[in-house]
């Protein structure tokens, strides 16, 4: 577990990212049917994969969040976090580019929150930077 006890920045980075992932999954786990609607609205996945994605994705987020917070399986968790954020970012940008005005569904499943796609993209980029920092520290930096 030598990875866990890296620089303070690394420690806080994984803690913050982990908590954000857990927080993001909370409402989706409570309302899987609503979240399925959001996934559907993205108009990216084939219909048959919508329900599975809506059920699976939040639990993956929770598990990744817990692993990050407790410093377990960090290399694997960081790979998946990066992959996931990349997928989210691509999906957001893809729909922004084709002019589909849909809710992000990133942190909430409610319909009341107005969504601003640019804001969602920027937020995702911010998380991505954090995740890439962790990735760099584990896999690419000299001391790793």
């Amino acid at each position, binding site marked *: 577990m030598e990875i866990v006890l890296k620089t303070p920045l690394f420690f806080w980075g994984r803690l913050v990212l982990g908590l954000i992932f857990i927080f993001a999954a909370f409402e989706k786990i409570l309302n899987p049917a609503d979240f399925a609607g*959001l996934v*559907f*609205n993205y108009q990216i996945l084939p219909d048959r994969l*919508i*329900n599975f994605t809506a059920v699976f994705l939040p639990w993956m987020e929770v598990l990744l969040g817990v692993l990050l917070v407790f410093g377990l*399986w960090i290399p*694997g*968790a960081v790979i998946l976090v990066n992959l996931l954020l990349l997928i989210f970012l691509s999906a957001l940008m893809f729909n922004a580019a084709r*002019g589909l005005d849909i809710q992000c569904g990133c942190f909430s499943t409610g319909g009341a929150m107005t969504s601003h796609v640019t804001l969602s993209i920027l937020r995702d980029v911010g998380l991505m930077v954090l995740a890439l920092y962790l990735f760099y520290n584990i896999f690419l930096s000299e001391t790793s």
Partner: protein
Amino acid sequence: MRCKGNKWLAGLLQAVGILFISALLSLIVNGLRPDRLPILADGTSRFRLATDPGKNLMVSLDEAKKHYFDRSAVFLDARSPEDYEQGHIKGAFNLPQENMEEKFSEVMENIPPERSIVVYCDGENCRSGSDLAVFLLEFGFTHVKVLVNGWSVWQENHLPVERNPRDIS
């Protein structure tokens, strides 16, 4: 170098493990809850924005705007009469689910089946709009589209609305 290679391998194995555990966890929890989603079934009829494969009922705001200003479509408000009274897209007719039977003929009798229709409700996930659209399609109207979260996006873009001051109490 050897250490680095191990790290990648460990990372990949852990990643696979995490995917596996997440899938297991999610399927177990989904199986236990009373409001479980059918995992393998196509559950999207609940959202009903796509009917036949490849036929997408969603209309973008730009298209809806074009329809609106060209007067090439009828706008139908699927929200409750109370919501409608408080404000709606200017010129839209109210066709709420709750009194569909009495309102249907009143609203739809002068609309030819091939006329373009844009249905909206409020909220990204409101189903009344898409339910109404599917109902109209089944009824024989051929050009029905849904403006997702219509009332909100319409207001956000400062497009023409109509409000009834009497009913705002």
